[in-house]
């Protein structure tokens, strides 16, 4: 079974891969990083006007990095509106995803946070710099292969 959005995207001949449904019935699609911008515009045209959250995680230590976007339609007096979850997988060595800041401005800080924590560069994002860690930090803290530097506070105090 394919969800409504998957059928609509297939009609417009936009490349995507449906990943089935979430445990709450949310449709999940996988998009390639090159196609992401055009499909993002198509989603905005379809009606998804609210980027709820943008999250990034790594799939396996040494494997791909994934960036997850949750969209929904915000209307007055809404009643369980449609929502969709988009995943973009990128390689660990060269993680580049086009930024969707110019379509949904709510991606501003969230993309900066996934850049800061996992190193996913968002192209054409204005002012993409570290947001939670200090500006001169080296390394991407939330990757699974990150080694925490030896802090004075974390050493055993006797």
């Amino acid at each position, binding site marked *: 079974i394919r969800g409504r959005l998957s059928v609509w995207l297939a009609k417009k001949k936009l490349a995507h891969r449906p990943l089935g449904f979430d*445990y*709450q019935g949310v449709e999940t699609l996988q998009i390639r990083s090159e196609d992401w911008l055009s499909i993002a515009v198509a989603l905005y045209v379809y009606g998804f006007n609210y980027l709820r959250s943008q999250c990034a995680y790594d799939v396996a230590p040494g494997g791909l990095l994934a960036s997850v976007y949750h969209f929904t339609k915000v209307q007055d007096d809404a009643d369980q509106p449609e929502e969709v979850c988009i995943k973009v997988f990128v390689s660990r060595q060269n993680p580049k995803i086009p930024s969707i800041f110019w379509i949904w401005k*709510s991606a501003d800080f969230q993309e900066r946070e996934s850049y800061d924590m996992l190193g996913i560069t968002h192209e054409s994002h204005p002012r993409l710099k570290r947001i939670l860690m200090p500006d001169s930090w080296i390394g991407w803290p939330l990757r699974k292969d990150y080694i925490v530097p030896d802090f004075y506070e974390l050493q055993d105090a006797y």
Partner: protein
Amino acid sequence: MADIGAQTPFFYILREREMIYDLFEAATEGIGIIGREEAINWGLSGPMLRASGVKWDLRKVDHYECYDELDWQIQWQIGGDSLARYLVRIGEMRESVKIIQQALKIIPGGPFENLEARRLHRGKNSEWNDFEYQFISKKPSPTFKLPKQEHYIRAEAPKGELGIFLIGDDSVFPWRWKIRPPGFINLQILPQLVKGMKLADIMTILGSVDIIMGEVDR
């Protein structure tokens, strides 16, 4: 002080100002206006979205828990300036009181158990003061396991939409636990709101956005 999360001084200041009501309206009207489309595009949620004319409240949209059985209205205003946000928050306080009164009436009857009171009543030698019970809130239960699924759960916090994206890993610890803090996302719009305003209005705008820095920084 606002960094640690104390926001009651903001309310005290607003209450003092309400004594001089005209001054308050002049200070907050027309400050930090957000249009309806912009508010949706910037991903705002909670009182900021509702003050810009969008009737969106997760408690009504998602139909979660027992909010459907209670009778209450969404507070919203058009004209997304600081005054509108203030009115939305005050209206929400009033609606919350009504919700609490209705909820108190529909609490199911029956006996209830209060272990803490029993422990204090029995004194030092009671079985409730045992070694096992002292750490009862610190140990995870032996059957606790996060299955290998991913969930995005959302709730309506006073700031906005608090979302948790959890990827389980068949063990006690999750693989990824991302919190979508409403304050973080509501703060994104601040540079745009401040453009063209007087310097003294920054405090008004920041107070109306209702920021808790602890949630922003995590």
